[in-house]
Every structure is written in C-alpha cells, then in structure tokens.
C-alpha cells in the first residue's frame, strides 16, 4: 500500500509539474514578451489559453500536499519545517500569481493591468524555482527527520537545489511555449504560432543543455543521487526523458502540436520517475525509507481506494470533459491582444 500511495503521489506531482509548470512557464513568457504594446499579442494568447484551465491545473498541488501528509506524515512534517523558507516563498508566489492573473482582465487602466501583469509574471518564476530548490534539498539528502531539524538555508541554497530550481523554471517555459504554439494554431494566428514555436525550440535547446549541466552539478554535490540517476532504472528513465525531449523538438519542427503535448509530458514524467528511482528506497535519502515514513495500512488503503473510486470515477471523466472542451476551442473567448481593451 505504501508503494501504491507513492505511485499516486508521483502521478499527482507529474500532473502538477506538467500542467501547473506550463502555466508558470507561460508567466515567464508574459514577463519577457516586451513592452505593453509589443508584448500585447503574446500576452493576449497566454491569458486566453490559461483562463479556463489554470485553476484545475493548480489543484494538483493541494491534492499532492494532502496525499503526502496523509500517506507520509513524518516525511511531510520534516520537509515542511526544514524547507520553510522556499515553501513560504512559494505560497506567497502562489497567492500573487493566482490573484494577479484573475484580477488582470478586470483592471481599470492599462497601468493597473501592467502592475498586475508584473506580479503575475514575476511570481510565476518564483514559484517553480522555490519548488525545484525544495526538491533539490530533499534529493540531495539535506532534509533530516525532525521538526525543522535541517538547516533553514543550506537545505535549499546549495548547488543541487539551485540547479533543479533553474531547471524547473526552464522546463515550465519549454512546456508553455510548446502548448501555446498549438493554441495559437487553433486560434488561427500564424504569426503568433511562428513566434511561440521559435521560443519553444530555443527553450527546448536551453533546457536540454541545462539538464546535462545539472547532472554534472549533482555528480559533485550529491554523488548518491548521481549514481542512482546513472545506473539501472534511473538511467533508463533519464535516457527515456532525453529521448522524449528530442522527439518533442522534432515534433515542434514539424508542428505536430497534439503529439507535442504528449511527448513533452512524457519527458517530465520520466525525470520525476527517474528521481524516485534514483533515491529508492528512501523518501528522505538515508534518513527515512518509504516504509518507515508510510502511514498505517488502514489509512493508505482508504486513500488508495478513494483515489480509485473518486479519482477514476469522478475526477478523470471531469478532466477529460474539460480538456476536450478546451482543446476543441469550446471554452475559448475571442482572441484579442491583451492591451486592446484598455486602448479603446
């Protein structure tokens, strides 16, 4: 049951990394789109794409938290108390990102919209970095068991954390550009499709390069993690991720946007599964194994059972309905550059 719960948790983490990560990546593109006039086209596309789905994409996060504190309570308590600096940072970023994004369409003036846009975009970079840094701290064995037992700073300000943090931001940007290019095609905006496609290719190349560099950093900073990632199942998954990453680049070149969504999600899933495989059998490397950290069997059974019943019976069909409506353009509002409504 511990393994089943871990699997469900990793699924939730993957879904959040892909869907939530892409939304944060869209924030990065919003940030780098240029001045209010020049960036209006890209920002209009970003807002139109994210609006109907960002909340559903975000809910994977509280869902994951709940799974962890119910299924692995000591792991959860130890991680939250030691890594409180990046995690409080992430919570502040989450509030600002969500609220600023929800409020921006209702801004009274272009000036207000720009302030809200900046809050949305900057926090979209902050949140994935914080989460990546926290993951780096866990994976490199810097979180001991206990109430704030680890160092409040070096647990997340270390080479592995910084490498994973940067990788998280870049991977989100890559996903976002790839998804947005597909949305631009659906919208019938070839110029936007072209521009986001270029961004996707650039971000893909940079993400790949940084991923290789990150592996080198991990080799020096967290040897056990490196060994796990370069042998056995870990290695297979890392190679799988690399292969899917290259496949995604080829699909972007040939503008197969539906397939791009699948292969890029697969690449992220492989990285997360590879991390899990690399630090097997530990939740907190060398301090807490999956079995030591797992809750009692009655709770885990109830949790996995409710996932089977509600997750597969209610949630999955609902998600399918939502994404089908979205991908067929049924929930799209008419496209307009973001600044249009304040310039009339």
């Amino acid at each position, binding site marked *: 049951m511990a393994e089943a719960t871990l699997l469900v948790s990793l699924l939730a983490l993957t879904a959040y990394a892909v869907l939530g990560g892409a939304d944060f990546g869209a924030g990065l593109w919003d940030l780098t789109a240029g001045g209010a006039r020049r960036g209006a086209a890209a920002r209009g596309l970003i807002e139109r794409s994210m*609006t109907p*789905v960002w*909340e*559903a994409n*975000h*809910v994977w996060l*509280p*869902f994951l*938290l*709940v799974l962890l*504190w*119910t*299924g692995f*309570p*000591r792991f*959860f*308590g*130890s991680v*939250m*108390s030691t890594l*409180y600096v990046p*995690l*409080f940072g992430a*919570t*502040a970023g*989450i*509030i600002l*990102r*969500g*609220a600023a*994004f*929800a*409020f921006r369409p*209702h801004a*009274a003036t272009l000036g207000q919209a720009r302030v809200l846009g900046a809050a949305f975009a900057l926090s979209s970079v902050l949140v994935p970095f914080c989460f990546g840094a926290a993951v780096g701290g866990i994976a490199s064995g810097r979180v001991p*068991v*206990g*109430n*704030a*037992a680890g160092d*409040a700073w070096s647990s997340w300000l270390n080479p592995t954390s910084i490498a994973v943090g940067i990788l998280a931001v870049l991977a989100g940007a890559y996903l976002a550009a790839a998804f947005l290019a597909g949305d631009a095609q659906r919208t019938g905006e070839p110029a936007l499709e072209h521009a986001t496609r270029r961004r996707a290719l650039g971000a893909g190349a940079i993400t790949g390069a940084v991923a290789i560099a990150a592996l080198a950093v991990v080799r020096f900073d967290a040897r056990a993690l490196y060994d796990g990632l370069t042998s056995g199942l870990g290695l297979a998954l890392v190679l799988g991720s690399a292969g899917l990453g290259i496949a995604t680049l080829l699909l972007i070149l040939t503008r197969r946007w539906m397939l791009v969504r699948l292969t890029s999600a697969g690449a992220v899933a492989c990285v997360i599964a590879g991390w899990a495989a690399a630090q097997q059998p530990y939740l907190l490397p060398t301090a807490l194994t999956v079995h030591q950290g797992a*809750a*009692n069997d*009655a*709770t885990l059974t*109830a*949790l996995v059972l*409710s*996932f089977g019943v*509600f997750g597969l019976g*209610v*949630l999955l069909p*609902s*998600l399918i*309905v*939502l994404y089908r*409506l979205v991908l067929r353009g*049924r*929930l799209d*509002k008419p496209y307009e550059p973001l600044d249009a409504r304040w310039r009339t």
Partner: protein
Amino acid sequence: MTAGLAALAPSLGPVDQEHLFWARELQAMSFIFHIPLVCFGVAFPAMVLFVEALGLRTRDDTYRALAKRWSKAMAVLFAVGVVTGTILSFELGLLWPEFTAKFGEVFGLAFGLEGFSFFTEAIFIAIYVYGWERLSPRLHLLAGIPIVITGVTGSLMVISVNGWMNHPVGFDVATNGSITNVKPWTALFNPNFWHEFVHMYVAAFMVAGFLVAAIYAVAWLRGERTHYVRIAMVVPLAVAALASPVQVLVGDWAGREVARYQPTKLAALEGAYRTESGAPIHIGGYYDGKGVEFGIPIPMLLSLLAEHDPSATIHGLEKVPERNRPPVNVVRFAFQTMVGIGTALALLGTLFVVTWWRHGRLPRSRWFYRAVIAAGPASLLALICGWVTTEVGRQPWIVYELMRTEQGVTNAGGLPLVFFAMLAVYLALTVLAVGVVRRLAARPPEAELGAAEAA
C-alpha cells in the same frame, strides 16, 4: 483519553515554543481571509443556478444577465479562494508539522476526499463560467450542478477534520506514545461532524445571502428600483432570511453537543467557574478568573439551553487545572457577539418572510433596507466570531485533550516576518477583490446580453 497525554511522544522530536504566538496569529489570519470565500463557494453557486433556471423558465433575459454577472464574480472569488485555500494546506505543514506528522494519517483521509471535491469544483466552474455562449442553455445549467454539490462536499470534509480536532476518535495511543489501530472512516465521521457542518452550511447561506443582498440594497435605497436590482436583492435576501431563524435551532443543537462532549468549552462560553445546578447566563460583563463581573444574569438559562432542563448541573472551569482552560474572555466575547448578531439576523429574516407571506410584497420602511445593508458585514462578523468561539474554545489543545497546541508548532524561525508579509498580501488581495467586484457591478446589466450577441 486524557491518560494518553503523558505518553504522547512527539513524532519529530522536542518542540521550541517561542513561535507559538505568531504561528497562531498567522493561522487565524489565513482563516479569516479564507472563510468568507468558503461561504461564497458553498452558497453562491446555488443562487446563481437558481436565477439561471428562473431565466430558462420565464424566458426573461434579466435573469440570464444577472446569473451571468454573478458567475463572473463567482469566478473571481473562486480564484482567490483557490489560492487562499492552498495557503491553508501549506500552513498545516509549515506551522504545525508535529500535528500533521503525528495525526496526518488519522485525519488526512477527509482532506483527500476534499481534494477530489475541490478538483471537480474547479473543473466545472471553468466549464460553467466560460461556457455561457458555447453550451446549450440546458447543458450549461447542468454543468453548474456539480459546482453546487462539490461546494458542499468540500466544506463538509474540511469541517470533518475540525470536528475531529474537537473530538478525536478513530485511533488508539500505544503505551510508547505512538498512534495505532487507526480507523480513518471512524475519524472522518466523528460525532462533532454533523452539527458543525450544518451550523457552517446554514451560516454560509446567511453570509453569502446577506452580503449580496446588502450590495443591492444600497442601490435600492439610492432609488435604482429596476427589475434587475429587485431580483438581485430579493433572491439572496430570501435565502438568508429563511436560513437565519433555522440557524437559531441549529445553534441550540450545536450548544448541546458542546455541553455533552466539551464541558470545559461550554463553561468558557459563559465564564462559569463553579460547577452548579440551575446555572445562569450573564449578558455582557467580563470573566475575572472566578466568575463573571458586571454581567446581567439570567437565572437557570445556561442549564436550560445546554441540557433543556433548568436545574441541570453544569460543569464549571474549576473542574480542570488552570493550564487546561481556554482564554475565557476571548471565547465568551466572541460567543456573545455571535449569538447577539445571530438573534438580530433571525428577527430581520423573520420580518422579511412574514411581510412577504402576509402582504406579498417587500417591506416598505427604508430602515429595513438599512438593516439589510448592516446585516451583510454583521453576518460575516458573526461567522468569524463563531469560528473564534470553537477554535479558541478548544485551546490549549490542538487535538482535544490529547495534544497541546504548543506541542504541534514548528521550530522554524522568522514567523513574525512571514506574518507581516502575508498580512500585506491579504490586505492587497482584499482591496483588489472588492475593487474588481465593484467594477463588475458598475457595468450596466445589458452589457452581459450584449456580449451574448457578439459572441
């Protein structure tokens, strides 16, 4: 159950108590900003759907315009609720890691189910809000029904956890202090669950109803007596007016449950120090450590309310050592404020229902509408006071009579800084949310139908 206390070993090691104050303040602040949004999550979708359904039946476009306008406000409030709710789930770990590490496996299932509910709600809110012009009217109305259901089931699950903290069941404490024999479903359906849920559910309809009605009562008093304003005021007002008298009965039920399971909390509600039969209730005054000073006593009322027997014996605070008593004046003041406002709202609601029933019209007095405007913020205040009553009344326990709040708190530093940063964020959020809702309301209602033609 109390025997378990000494044996209850901390799960993550010894605790530093220095941050207890700030952790509490931060948690309380986060709840205060989130709870009004919960009310809208529970009660508002039902009102929006009701108006939309009326529009479908009467083919009157005013209803459709109103439902569409409300759904936009609902979307904004839901978005803010999503993020403030996420913060709460973070804080359970960030502020109370010992609590989640020790008991997460007991109470966590409810939050897991809440997760599914929240998820489904987010999905259907998106379909509902962005599907106005894209789905057929019937399908659109159907897409709203899951929102109504999940708004209720989600809060149901969260309240189950609160009920459990007040009445922890579904596990044993072993002699070495570890938690064994966990029965997650027993914990989920703990005895506090039903009355807390019904109390909050009815409160949500009162708060959302009176707040929305208050907005349109302002317009009504300004002379904007259009068909649109009339519907927008009467629907939420009717909901709140029907809920308010019911809440008096539910409150009585909740009070008797507290008397049964948490006699110390009941004693704190009144400031009853001595155990006595035929205990009085004092209105006003303050608790000085030995009883209530300067209050107006009403003989035997506490016994009557708590046990439905004027001579029943009520356990006083003297029954427990001083360190196990909650801060009586805070609890008592919050409780009296809640009951006072609740009673006034019940009278206001009854007045509205009686006028409607007997004369088939709205009350004519301008004072009635002024009272409705006051009822909006007052109902919110009563709601917060109710939560203060139950949560501060539970102190010094985070898990009633089993884990003290200071045993649950984090050892991490920097909490004052976090508190003030979050306060700034929440205040900005409140100002922006109010501004956005006002801007939405300022547009003429026809704008909603105009958009329909354009799309």
